[in-house]
C-alpha cells in the first residue's frame, strides 16, 4: 500500500495519534486515528514512539513519520498528563532537543553526553555527504583567507594573555 503522510498530530482526550495522509491510488485525503493505550505521566516517550511506529497495524502508515516527531507528540501528551502548560512542555522539548552552546560537555556522564551527541548527529547527518552519494568528492579544498579585515569571533577577550 502506498500512502503519503501529510500531517501528524495528537489528540489529548481520549489520547490518540492522528495521521492525515493521502492514498495515492485515489489522491484523496484520509485520516487515521491510532489510539494511545497504556500511557501515563511516567511513560517513556521514546519507547512509546517506537512501539507505535513498529505496531503491525500502523507501521505502513507511519513509514514517513519520523520517530522524533512521534516522540515529540508523546511528550505533549505526557506534559498534559502532568498538568504542564503547553508553553512549559514546549520549553522542555526545546531544552531536550537542542544544544546549549554554553554547556561544558566534558562535565556530563556517558548517558547525557550520548544524548547531546545524538542531537548533534541530526545536523551532521543532514549535512553529510556520504561516500556512496553520486556527487561525493573525497578531497574538497576551500580557502578561507585569514587576513586582518576579519571580524573577531567574539570569543577572544581583550586581554591577550588569556590563553
Amino acid at each position, binding site marked *: 500500500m502506498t500512502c503519503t503522510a501529510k500531517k501528524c498530530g495528537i489528540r489529548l482526550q481520549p489520547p490518540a495519534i492522528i495521521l492525515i495522509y493521502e492514498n495515492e491510488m485515489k489522491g484523496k485525503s484520509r485520516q487515521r486515528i491510532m489510539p494511545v493505550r497504556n500511557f501515563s505521566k511516567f511513560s517513556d516517550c521514546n519507547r512509546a514512539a517506537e512501539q507505535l511506529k513498529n505496531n503491525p497495524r500502523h507501521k505502513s502508515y507511519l513509514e514517513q513519520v519520523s520517530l522524533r516527531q512521534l516522540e515529540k507528540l508523546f511528550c505533549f501528551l505526557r506534559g498534559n498528563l502532568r498538568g504542564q502548560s503547553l508553553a512549559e512542555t514546549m520549553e522542555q522539548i526545546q531544552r531536550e532537543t537542542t*544544544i546549549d*552552546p*554554553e*554547556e*561544558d*560537555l*566534558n*562535565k*556530563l556522564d*556517558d548517558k547525557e*553526553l550520548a544524548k*547531546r*551527541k545524538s542531537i*548533534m548527529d541530526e*545536523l*551532521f*547527518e543532514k*549535512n*553529510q*555527504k556520504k*561516500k556512496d552519494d553520486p556527487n561525493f*568528492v*573525497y*578531497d*574538497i*579544498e*576551500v580557502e*578561507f583567507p*585569514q587576513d586582518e579585515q*576579519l*571580524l*573577531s*569571533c*567574539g*570569543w*577572544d577577550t581583550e586581554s*591577550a594573555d*588569556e*590563553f
Partner: protein
Amino acid sequence: MARDKANPCEVDQEKYDADDNVKIICLGDSAVGKSKLMERFLMDGLYPSSQPQQLSTYALTLYKHTATVDGKTILVDFWDTAGQERFQSMHASYYHKAHACIMVFDVQRKVTYKNLGTWYAELREFRPEIPCVVVANKIDADIKVTQKSFNFARKFSLPLYFVSAADGTNVVKLFNDAIRLAVSYKQNSQDFMDEVLQELENIDLEQKEEELPDQEQCGSTKSLPPS
C-alpha cells in the same frame, strides 16, 4: 617520564622511532568531532581501511593509515581520545613520541574554543616542539564563522583550518598537511626535550657507575670497628 614508566602502554611505541612511522595525536573537548574527522579522512578507499583499534585501558582509539610523502611510504598511526578528554587531560603515554598534533574545537560551542588553552598547555608540557594545527570544525552548521578571526591560532602562530567532517570541506587537506608536518618534524629535528631527557638519563647512568665504588668503600668503612 616517571608516569610513563609506571604505566606501560599496551601499544608498542618503540616503532615510532622507525623512519617510516609517525604518530599523530588528536586533542580537544568531548563531542567536537574528532572521531568524525578521522572517519571522513579515512573514507578514501585508496588503501584498504582497517577497523580502528579500541584500546579501552587507555581510553583511546587507534586509526592506521598509509600515506605517500615525497615518494616514500609512511605508516601513520592516528591517536584519538575515547572519553579521557572529559578530564581535560590525557595520560602521558598519549603524548609520548607524538610527531604532530591536531587540536580541534567546535565552532558552535565557545567553551571548546576556550579550552584549547588547557589542551595546548598540556601538549607543550610533554611535547614542546612538535607541529600543532588548530581545527575549527562544523563550519557546515554556520559558514559565517569562516569570515571571523580566531586569535588563539594567531597568538601561538599555529595554522588554522576551517573544516566540516559532515560535508568534507578541507578534511583531507588538514590531515595530509598534518602528516607532512609530522614527517618533516621527524626528519629535521629531534625534540629538544627528548634530547635533554636523553642527556639526563645518560648522566644518571654515569653517576651511578661512579657512585658504586664509593658506596662499597663507604660500606667497608662502616664495617670497621670504631677506632
